[in-house]
């Protein structure tokens, strides 16, 4: 589609955008009234539970469900045999296999059967009555072990055409990006640093477990309520898996208790629908926390080798990274994104990345906030820091010297338009945090991060009510305040107060296709569609006013919430407000609405610089975060409080990833820490306030200059913290998480 671009740098005088109004779902959420996934119920509903594999890798020889089916109170039992067969190796085929195992179980926690019963108690008993005969197979959970000769093989013959012959059969794809001549570049350096880095898998860690309620009639009409980042995706995926017509399956998104990428696919939903179909009753399914950790998410673990050459003046002459990501039991780790983003912040003549997508006996990875980028940035930003400090150079100055700018050819190919990296670096350098004194055992680290952002299919319907208020229907679950942002943009465009607009998230029967709430796309793309819908409504209202005034519609303009006659032949008429036009809509042609169905492309890339102070306890290896400041380009901050919230939340997830969080598998391939006690995400007492500095370098691809902000903030923290801890501990940390035992060991070995 043709985009409304900002054609000049002339600043728009915003009235609503950029303020901090109260969110429309605020009262519901502070009073407990808001209905999340597990809060929905239906008369006569059954409880659905899933039986999961106790093995990391095994052939399913047989499943006997007869005893469970015969139990009083059990209304349905399903296994993979109940589902239509999909093409193996197709994207949806893998999703189905992940929701319900076929011939093999591929990880600890893989679903093998499910029951629907009249009570949770009976459902649990029924699960115990299902007899599964397994033939155990060797397993592998580490990314580097998985590609050694002789490693257990998950999917023989599934590598795609990019993988060279003779590679490990657990390699699914290979990616290579970059330009120039690496060896020639490295040869110009005063020092070439070679380092390897590892990160563990971390979970998105949303506090709300997956939950859904399904019902299906014998006529094939089905309804599903669930917590998801994209109910249109749920509809389409479930329809394909169950062989339903998309139009017959209506999905309603509940409030969503966090997602961070982890709710961009389905786990329970097709199973719940199948149980509902077999039992002819509504079926509700809610995961336990242990199920969430064992069988959903997490992100990939990574192993990255870096070679970077730098002159003693701090110029990077050549940069190479080889990235190995394991994405669990199916192809599709975000190593492609990692490989494209690794060196994106820098202006490099000679740069190359090679990425390997590897499978292991772990749960299928799901997207996690800027998928693939944090691990790559950890490696690259650590190496740059080590080189800079080795030459006695200021690490911010070195980044400034090499920073990508407008006109720089990005390491992944394109030439950048206006971007904000340099602005974040300069702001960081001038910030009091940078010059604040440090005490003993303390260190300061900085790192940069990049994320792409994108748009995608979007529908918005804006209706003017007879009393002159406005409702906006959009199709993207509101995960962090987007209903407020949409109301703000509609109010801005219409020239009416924010309080006159209410935005709702409509079900799949009410709007056309909407891409998932992901890719930091909502404020950008849904915002753009909201603005266009409002413009369409304005044009209609101008037309109605023109009818009343007996002049041409072209002679009417909209400003300050009212139609005004404009131009030499318009005559003099008192302005008609939105409410006045709405009141006579029935007399002038019927209800007034504006809508927009579009696939907005042209999302603006986003950059951030993070700065962090840490203190390391040399006795225990424990790390404390003393101070943290985020500098990020938001394009235009529609609701600055929510932009700050995204910066703070991303930084905190990065702190968890850097310091505590990790999937720990035993020798037996069983996840050892499937609970919030042992999988420890940051708590309030772990943290200081997270300071934020919002920069606004307008995105030329959006009428208000908006860029996505949600994902970039998780990219720099891993490296920023590693750089700070390395300085505080006096030893370079290259393995995440930097948990106390690991830090202590590094100190002792140094």
């Amino acid at each position, binding site marked *: *589609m043709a985009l409304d671009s900002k054609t000049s740098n002339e600043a728009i005088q915003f009235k609503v955008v950029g303020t901090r109004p109260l969110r429309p779902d605020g009262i519901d959420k502070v009073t407990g009234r808001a209905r999340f996934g597990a809060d929905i119920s239906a008369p006569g509903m059954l409880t659905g539970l899933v039986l999961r594999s106790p093995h990391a890798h095994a052939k399913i020889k047989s499943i006997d469900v007869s005893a469970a089916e015969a139990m009083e109170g059990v209304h349905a039992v399903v296994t993979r045999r109940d589902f239509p067969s999909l093409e193996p190796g197709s994207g949806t085929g893998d999703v189905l296999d992940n929701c319900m195992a076929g011939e093999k179980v591929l990880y600890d926690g893989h679903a093998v059967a499910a029951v629907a019963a009249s009570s949770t108690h009976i459902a649990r008993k029924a699960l115990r009555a299902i007899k599964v005969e397994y033939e155990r197979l060797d397993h592998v959970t580490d990314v580097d072990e998985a590609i050694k000769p002789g490693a257990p093989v998950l999917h023989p013959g599934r590598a*795609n*055409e*990019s993988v060279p012959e003779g590679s490990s059969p657990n390699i699914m794809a*290979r*990616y*290579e*990006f*970059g*330009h120039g001549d690496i060896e020639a570049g490295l040869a110009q350096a005063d020092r070439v640093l070679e380092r390897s880095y590892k990160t563990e898998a971390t979970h*998105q860690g949303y506090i709300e477990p997956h939950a859904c309620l399904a019902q299906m009639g014998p006529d094939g009409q089905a309804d599903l309520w669930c917590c998801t980042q994209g109910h249109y995706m749920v509809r389409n995926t479930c329809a394909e898996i169950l062989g339903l017509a998309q139009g017959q399956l209506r999905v309603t998104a509940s409030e969503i208790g966090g997602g*961070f*990428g*982890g709710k*961009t696919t389905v786990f329970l939903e097709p199973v719940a629908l199948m149980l509902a179909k077999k039992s002819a009753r509504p079926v509700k399914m809610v995961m336990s926390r242990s199920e969430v950790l064992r069988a959903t998410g997490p992100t990939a673990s990574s192993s990255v080798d870096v070679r970077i050459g730098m002159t003693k003046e701090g110029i990077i002459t050549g940069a190479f990274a080889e990235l190995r990501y394991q994405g669990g039991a199916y192809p599709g780790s*975000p190593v*492609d*994104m990692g*490989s*494209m983003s690794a060196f994106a912040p820098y202006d490099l003549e000679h740069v*190359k990345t*090679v990425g390997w997508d590897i499978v292991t006996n772990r749960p299928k990875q799901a*997207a*996690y*906030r*800027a*998928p*693939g980028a944090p691990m790559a940035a950890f490696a690259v930003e650590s190496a740059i820091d080590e080189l800079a400090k080795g030459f006695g150079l200021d690490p911010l100055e070195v980044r400034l010297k090499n920073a990508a700018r407008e006109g720089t050819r990005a390491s*992944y*190919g*394109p*030439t*950048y*338009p206006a971007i904000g990296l340099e602005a974040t670096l300069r702001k960081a350098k001038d910030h009091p945090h940078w010059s604040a004194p440090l005490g003993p055992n303390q260190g300061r680290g900085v790192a940069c991060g990049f994320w*792409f*952002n*994108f*748009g*995608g*299919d979007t529908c918005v319907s804006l209706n003017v009510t007879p009393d002159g208020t406005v409702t906006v229907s959009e199709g993207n679950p509101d995960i962090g305040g987007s209903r407020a942002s949409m109301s703000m943009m509609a109010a801005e465009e219409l020239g009416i107060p924010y309080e006159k607009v209410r935005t709702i998230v409509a079900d799949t029967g009410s709007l056309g296709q909407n891409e998932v709430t*992901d*890719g*930091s*796309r909502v404020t950008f793309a849904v915002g753009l569609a909201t603005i266009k819908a409002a413009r369409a409504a304005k044009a209609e209202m101008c037309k109605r006013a023109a009818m009343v005034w007996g002049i041409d519609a072209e002679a009417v303009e909209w400003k300050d919430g009212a139609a005004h006659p404009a131009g030499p032949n318009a005559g003099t008429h008192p302005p008609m407000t939105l409410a006045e036009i709405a009141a006579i809509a029935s007399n002038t042609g019927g209800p007034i609405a504006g809508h927009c169905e579009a*696939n907005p*492309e*042209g*999302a603006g890339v986003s950059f951030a610089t993070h700065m962090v102070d840490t203190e390391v306890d040399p006795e225990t290896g424990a790390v404390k975060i003393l101070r943290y400041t985020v500098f990020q380009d938001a394009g235009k901050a529609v609701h600055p409080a929510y932009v700050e919230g995204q910066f703070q939340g991303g930084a905190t997830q990065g702190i968890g990833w850097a310091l505590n969080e990790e999937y720990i598998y035993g020798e037996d391939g069983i996840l050892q820490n499937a609970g919030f006690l042992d999988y420890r995400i940051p708590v309030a007492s772990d943290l200081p306030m997270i300071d934020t500095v919002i920069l606004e370098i307008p995105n030329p*691809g959006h009428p208000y200059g908006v860029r996505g902000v949600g*994902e970039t903030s998780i990219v720099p923290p891993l490296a920023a913290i590693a750089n700070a801890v390395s300085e505080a501990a006096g030893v370079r940390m290259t393995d995440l998480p930097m948990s106390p035992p690991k830090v202590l060991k590094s100190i002792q070995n140094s």
Partner: protein
Amino acid sequence: MVQVKIWGSLSQFTEDRREVEIEAKNLRELLDGLAESYPGLKPQLERGVSVSIDGRVYNDSWFQPIEEDSEVVLLARLKGG
């Protein structure tokens, strides 16, 4: 003719060329032209790609015009969280 930059691991299907010429006035013609001239690219094109045109990323819009002197770069299909 449009100059298209393709990423490194795809060049095995373009006679080792990192930049190829395709006769195309829009995105659809570009993708069709690539698949026709270099059938080895087809599996990747079917799995999905993103295309940067003059620094802006496009995923799906077939009829996005491409000028002769546009900078066109093939990217792995963008994902997000």
